[in-house]
């Protein structure tokens, strides 16, 4: 048994007097998928942005287990280290692929960018790696020189995933990764994510309002309401035996199919 890859304690984010999220403590372990669920305005996206270093926290600690074994608070890293972390050891999958892709450069360059950012300077090798990753997200190799503007929503999302995974990160943040997709396309993206997460042993923090997505992808769940955690536990336990009134309401609101 090792130690957590990410450790959050007493995290708070305020917007003036308004509470974005508060009293947040949890750990993420290597290879584990944690879902943060809640309705719009519950603070789940604020929380995700804080722990992924995209938003400043008001107080509390966020520690990350670096590859070199250190376990520093993210606030104690230099900006250079933090940004390096974000484009190598971390990934961030946005709900809207346009937020995570460069829409005006080719699919191959989108995937290759992180490699070039860490110093790869061999065009042929970068292209081979990009081709391989496009394959892993089920994008045909002959689309490598097409720009994402020519892709469907599902393809764009899969491209965004490939772009994030090419540096073999250990921790991925996802913000409603299937939220903007047609239902028919969602299943494919979810299944792909599920496979990649388990094959690569990724730790994932995924924000979703869709309990079916949480059940399919995550082992553990955090339920948020009004900026606070109201329930946490094993995903199937929380969904099949919800304890908090709000969780019961969420679970009761799912349409059975």
């Amino acid at each position, binding site marked *: 048994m090792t130690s957590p890859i990410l450790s959050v304690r007493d995290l708070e984010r305020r917007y003036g007097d308004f509470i974005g999220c508060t009293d947040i403590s949890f750990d993420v372990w290597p290879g584990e998928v944690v879902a943060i669920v809640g309705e719009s305005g519950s603070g789940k996206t604020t929380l995700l942005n804080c722990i992924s270093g995209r938003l400043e926290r008001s107080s509390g600690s966020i520690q990350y287990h670096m590859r070199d074994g250190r376990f520093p608070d993210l606030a104690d890293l230099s*900006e*250079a280290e933090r*940004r390096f972390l974000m*484009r190598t050891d971390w990934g961030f999958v946005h709900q809207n692929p346009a937020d995570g892709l*460069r829409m005006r*450069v*080719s699919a*191959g*360059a989108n995937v*290759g*960018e*992180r*490699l*070039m*950012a*860490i110093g790869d*300077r*061999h*065009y*042929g090798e*970068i*292209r081979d790696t990009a081709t391989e990753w496009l394959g892993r997200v089920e994008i045909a190799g002959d689309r*490598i*020189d097409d720009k994402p503007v020519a892709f469907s929503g599902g393809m764009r999302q899969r491209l965004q995933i490939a772009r994030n995974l090419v540096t073999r990160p250990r921790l991925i943040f996802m913000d409603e990764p299937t939220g903007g997709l047609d239902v028919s396309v969602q299943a494919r993206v979810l299944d792909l994510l599920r496979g990649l997460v388990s094959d690569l042993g990724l730790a994932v923090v995924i924000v979703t309002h869709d309990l079916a997505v949480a059940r399919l992808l995550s082992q553990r769940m955090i339920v948020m309401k009004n900026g606070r955690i109201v329930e946490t536990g094993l995903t199937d336990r929380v969904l099949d035996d919800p304890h908090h009134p709000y969780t019961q309401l969420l679970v009761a609101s799912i349409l059975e199919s």
Partner: protein
Amino acid sequence: MTLPEYNFAYLDEQTKRMIRRAILKGIAIPGYQVPFASREMPMPYGWGTGGVQVTAAILGPDDVLKVIDQGADDTTNAVSIRAFFAKTANVATTTKTADATVIQTRHRIPEAPLSAGQVIVYQVPIPEPLRFLEPRETETRVMHGLEEYGLIHVKLYEDIAQHGHIATTYAYPVKVEDRYVMDPSPIPKFDNPKMNGSPALQLFGAGREKRIYALPPFTHVVSLDFEDHPFQVQKFKQPCALCNATGVYLDEVVTDDRGGRMYVCSDTDHCETRRQDGHHGTGLPIAGQETVKEDAA
């Protein structure tokens, strides 16, 4: 009645000092874009307002000024800037590269090697090499600060993916002293190697963008590339039609409306000097007859 005269070299002394401070900072940090309080000049943006301000700030009464545009001393832009300083600073002007102490240029570096003591001032339209892919100035500044230059290779990657080779032929990005990525201004990449290790001081002024940057003499300047697609300069398949020079940058000149064309030195001073020295090429093509079979590579 006499009209009040211009201050020497048009700009007031405080402004020149401000620009000199920016230049010194630029020299101290080769390749780094130093912001400066660019002034309105009596010419439109895009006509060299940045270069003119830099020239005005460094010009002394004993300087000899040469101004070129696309390598030519006789284009409108070159002629008017030369006249501007002849009038406002009363400095000597020349078209001879070797005779000049200050050379202001747009789009070329002279063919004749520059020497110690000379200053070349580049007119720069867009100083930010990362802008093509990252429009946010706040972000590109951080990227320069943290030396995050993966993006610049994304552009080169796109070139190869689309054209099979790096198709960027001008404003080709360089890395300075293994630190800052710099836009060399829209000179042809043919001229990039001339920047490396040059004994002359190289100054860059962007008026609209309010940036100055510099390469002190003997600065290490490397054109970016991929291991398997190394940087290459343009090669021409024929010599200059007028002076028979090879290994120089040629312009294509259309000579009639029946497809006649010739390739001549873009550096007019270089070409004239050679012709005075007795070199001559094939001359004008006979009308209607193709003398040059292949285009420039």
